[in-house]
């Protein structure tokens, strides 16, 4: 059956100039954004959190011209699927941030619930940037959920000495910090999703 399969369209880099097309409101361009880094409203159910981080290249320099997307379940562990229209009034679980604006990415969201038994709460993340021809997938786990993390099959499939790269750390102000290291000793774990 594989003989008749069409080939996937190759990925190409997002380049440096995506902002006015993909994150226009954040960049102050005159177009409504489809998705934003501020994913919650005051009455969104669940624990409101912020997730932020820097992106570092192989020389330890901060990468600014990158776009980060996140996709997550709501506080009940449920994903919004294609059957429900993603209107402004509901928590879609999808966020998008242009890191160029503040030299880092930051999201206002809620802490996701576990999607099923044996899964730890996590946020799915895609990294796009100039200088990357194919996007990279990773996951964000939480440092205050280590018991559940250690039962999570995906988390446990990662070599033990690299698992720390997937953990967001809560700082004293209650913000979760999650830095991405594209290369080096602490290279973030990226998945073949």
């Amino acid at each position, binding site marked *: 059956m594989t003989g008749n399969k069409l080939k996937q369209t190759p990925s*190409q880099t997002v380049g440096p100039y995506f902002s006015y097309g993909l994150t226009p409101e954040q*960049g102050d361009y005159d177009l409504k954004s489809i998705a934003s880094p501020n994913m919650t409203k005051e009455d969104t159910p669940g624990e409101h959190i912020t997730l932020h981080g820097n992106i570092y290249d192989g020389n330890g320099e901060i990468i600014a011209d990158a776009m980060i997307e996140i996709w997550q379940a709501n506080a009940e562990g449920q994903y919004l699927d294609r059957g429900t229209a993603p209107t402004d009034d509901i928590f879609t679980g999808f966020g998008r941030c242009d890191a160029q604006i503040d030299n880092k990415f930051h999201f206002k969201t809620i802490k996701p619930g576990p999607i099923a038994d044996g899964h730890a709460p996590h946020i799915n993340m895609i990294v796009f940037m100039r200088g*990357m021809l194919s996007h990279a997938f990773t996951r964000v786990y939480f440092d205050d959920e280590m018991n559940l993390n250690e039962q999570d099959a995906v988390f446990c499939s990662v070599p033990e000495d690299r698992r720390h790269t997937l953990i967001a750390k809560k700082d004293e102000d209650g913000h979760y910090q999650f830095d991405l290291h594209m290369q080096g000793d602490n290279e973030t774990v990226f998945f073949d*999703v």
Partner: protein
Amino acid sequence: MSDKIDKRDWDVHAPYIYPGYKSTAFRGPKKPLIPIKHSLSELTIPAFGHEQMQKHDNDLTKNGKVDGDPLGERIQVSGRVLDEYARPQPGILVEIWQANAAGRYIHIVDQHDAPIDPNFFGGGRCVTDEDGRYTFMSIKPGAYPWGNHHNAWRPNHIHFSLFGMSFASRLVTQMFFPGDPLLPLDPIYNASPDPEARKSLISKFSQEYSIPDFALGYEFDIILRGPTATPMEG
């Protein structure tokens, strides 16, 4: 929701480190990717766009108009979004952005010495119809120089961003134009390892989508990862 989705085909997608494209050297991950067993996390995604589309969102000749029409060659770009089994992907959000006819982006960081067109914005989006078809009106984007190597110029291209039926089918790519002499010289285009797949990034001139006395047509189909088809044979 998809039940199962085929793997990302690394024979067609560019590697993270590609020497011809200099910036990849310090930006692409170097350690092997870790395989993941798909769960709802990878197999779901909302249907974006239906509620959010605004008038002229798919007409770049109109959505940036201030006091006249944008300059350049008007084009209509249309194509179908399909999965690997040629099944149409309806209700897919397609976002595009591009340079103007002179090769200049409206982006604040672009300092290329070419004029900004006060009547051209360069960004738009639409949602695919029941046949998986999208259509944009625009202006043919110009080539522009970039810093990768001496006298480096990007071929004319339009950036495309697509959501599929699942998180795993997300795709960002670029559409090129037939006959562009810069294509053989462009490391971004050439980074895709499969020559046939690479050629699929070049749109085809289309009389069907040309509009008499108004615009030239180009057709560009996009193949996303879709749900795995059940094998018919035993």
